[in-house]
């Protein structure tokens, strides 16, 4: 009988670097490393030569210089005398704002459409299928342009609201849809409004405490407390009471037509609305498909088993189907959020000043610092992506099927 033994240990020969599996991987890795270093070295030396020829250098000093341009929507204080760095910060916040709004809206649209696609109602099912196919198969850029065109070319100019017999009127006397954007009432925080806000936050915590208590009671004693209306009561009643007791400290500032434009209230730019809704509706179609796939991935037996235990349909959905479906839905949902964030860079098409519009647009054109600006831009998106996918991994580990 022969037994398995170690391969013969001869002296090391050069040919073993190619032919011996023990050494071959080192050879390949070495070659790969050399090639990568060579490529980077080549690109780097070209860069140096080109910069020297053009009399340029790599420097981030431009970030400290005054930017000399205005931004039409700023969440933090900014003027044209602020630095380029400040402009980039404004851009980052604008990116975050539109991404956040679009993520929430897309989730709502997507979940609705996804659930309705599984509805027993034939016509609703077909309508939703039409929505999903229409929006998934057309570039988001075209949707952004279409919605932006609605915002700028279809909506009336502010002076259409003027006169005794205006051609346009404000919705509920509070919202004005104009081609310069949407005007809506702004809250004015009077004295005492802090207390109202604190009470509201406390009520939110109270709702969670109540629900946890109800669940615990259910598990301990089997007694089922109502969940729905007490939560609403806890959420709103104390806040409203405090609000009226303190004499309405929070009031609304309505937009009013003064001169050629609306004054007061909050102006939401048409470009923001276009980008926000285009991203939301477009990504909503993708999310709808994920939701549908997630619900369908829960085998029918699960729902039937729950039904045979005597559970009602909405409890079956909430307690049996959805928790299992979420495990399938969440990972692609997060990557859709990532897509929204990355696609929000298309803001440049409609002139919304996000980070691509400030740092990668006007700052780049003014200073000519293309390499530095684009490097920073990429770094920003990369950080966001890595952060979100890091969060996704944490979540995935939390909801993963616990196999024992």
């Amino acid at each position, binding site marked *: 009988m022969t037994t398995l033994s170690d391969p013969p240990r001869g002296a090391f020969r050069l040919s073993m670097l*190619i032919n011996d599996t023990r050494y071959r*991987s080192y050879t390949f890795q070495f070659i790969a490393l050399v090639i990568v270093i060579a490529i980077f070295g080549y690109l780097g030396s070209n860069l140096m030569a080109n910069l020297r020829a053009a009399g340029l250098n790599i420097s981030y000093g431009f970030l400290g210089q005054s930017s000399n341009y205005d931004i039409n929507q700023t969440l933090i204080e900014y003027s044209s005398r602020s630095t380029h760095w400040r402009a980039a910060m404004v851009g980052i916040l604008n990116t975050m704002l539109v991404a956040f709004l679009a993520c929430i809206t897309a989730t709502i649209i997507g979940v609705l459409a996804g659930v*309705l696609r599984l509805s027993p109602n034939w*016509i609703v099912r077909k309508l939703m299928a039409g929505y999903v196919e229409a929006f*998934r*198969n057309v570039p988001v850029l075209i949707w952004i342009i*279409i919605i932006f065109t609605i915002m700028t*070319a279809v909506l009336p100019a502010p002076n259409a609201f003027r006169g005794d017999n205006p051609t346009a009127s404000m919705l509920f006397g509070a919202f004005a849809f104009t081609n310069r954007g949407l005007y809506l009432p702004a809250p004015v925080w009077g004295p005492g409004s802090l207390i109202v806000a604190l009470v509201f936050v406390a009520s939110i915590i109270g709702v969670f405490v109540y629900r946890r208590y109800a669940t615990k009671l259910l598990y301990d004693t089997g007694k089922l407390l109502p969940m729905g209306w007490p939560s609403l009561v806890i959420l709103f009643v104390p806040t409203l009471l405090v609000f009226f007791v303190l004499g309405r400290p929070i009031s609304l500032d309505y937009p009013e037509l003064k001169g050629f434009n609306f004054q007061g209230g909050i102006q939401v730019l048409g470009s923001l609305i276009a980008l926000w809704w285009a991203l939301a509706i477009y990504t909503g179609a993708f999310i709808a498909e994920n939701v549908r796939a997630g619900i369908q991935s829960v085998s029918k037996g699960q729902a039937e088993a729950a039904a045979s235990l005597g559970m009602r349909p909405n409890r079956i959905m909430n307690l049996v189907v959805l928790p299992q479906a979420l495990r399938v839905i969440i990972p692609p949902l997060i990557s859709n959020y990532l897509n929204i964030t990355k696609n929000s860079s298309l803001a440049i098409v409609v002139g919304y000043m996000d980070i691509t519009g400030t740092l990668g647009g006007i700052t780049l054109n003014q200073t000519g610092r293309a390499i530095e600006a684009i490097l920073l831009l990429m770094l920003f998106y990369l950080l966001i992506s890595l952060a979100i996918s890091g969060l996704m991994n944490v979540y995935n580990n939390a909801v993963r099927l616990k196999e024992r």
Partner: protein
Amino acid sequence: MSDTHQQSIGYVRDSMLPETAPPLGEAGAIKWARANLFSSVANGILTLVALFTIYLLISAVLPWILNGIWEAPSIRACREILDGATGGCFAVLTERWNQLLFGFKYPSDIYWRPTLAFVLLFVAIAPVLFRKVFPAQMLVFTALYPFVAYYLIWGGSILIPIFALLGFVVGYLVYSRFVAQSFAAGFFGGIVAALLFWYVTGFLPVEGILALEEVPSRDMGGFMLNLILGTVCVSLSIPFGIALALGRQSDMPIIKWICVVFIEFIRGVPLITLLFVANVVLAYFLPPGTNFDLILRVIIMITMFASAYIAEVIRGGLAALPNGQYEAGDSLGLDYAQKMRLIILPQALKISIPGIVNVAVGLFKDTTLVSVISMFDLVGMIRGPILASTEWNGVYWELLSFAALLFFVVCYGISQYSQWLERELQTDHR
């Protein structure tokens, strides 16, 4: 006795009743409507809302389409013909048809060349898409197609595509000579031989031999540009994607990390920043004096972008294979290249087809982004030259719906094909 008794009970029937139709409410359209549309109050409300939505859509769109004007020199003429009635001004499509498809710079007397290339694309792609219907010999034409298409669209001397083709042939010959010894030797030998061949032929004079009129890349535009970018980048990115996916799965840490960093970097940044790189930064990284044209730089960037995404899809396919498949390959004594080629990749690629098609559709849609770096693709043409012209300033809906429709037809077609293929390839019995 029995006779009289029989006659006395009248309710015993001696003939079968003919079948009657079911009650009205339990058959046909009414039953279907009751079961599907009005099974409950909430359902009924949903149905009504849906019907109302559909009515709104149709009542808005139908008169606009039916009343459309197809022949008019400008938007003012169009509005005069309409005289206040609702109607689309589709004359812009007929008048600017060639610009929408080919861009505004492509010489108009040679539109037949890209058109022919487009028709031939179907001939070339048919045997790949429908293997069972078309004979395998047609794949020869598929292999030749890129060179034919290049010659037709860009023009110039015929020797350039022929040398390019011959380079591949030389590479393949060297590969098949050495592959029996070792896959790596054959593979890298083939690449080196092809590169050498191209380098040598670079010195040969090629001007004017069977030359078609030459069209520079910057004259490409319209939907043609979207199609060129889409097909070229998707087909290039699949081999790169496979290589990256295998690299990421590899046991060799350095190769693995090179692939991981590349993939995660590309996937973490928006395509538009990569296009900015192609537009303004890439020139700094090339040897001084090289004049790379923009379309080539864009193709390089989009290919990198797409291959990172395809690599992730294929990695999913590789991970989905049971470990037994890898072990089976090992136990047969196959080396890495054989194992991958014969056992792993055929199965992994089959699993990844839907994902790859998704990436391809997404990429094709993303080719519209080149309009941001002032290339005149379909969207760029619409936003730039056409809407800015005095004749057609303000014809948004007709143009944008046309663009949306073109993309919808292509993308919907591709995704339907992928679903069909998935069913076709399903060899397990579930």
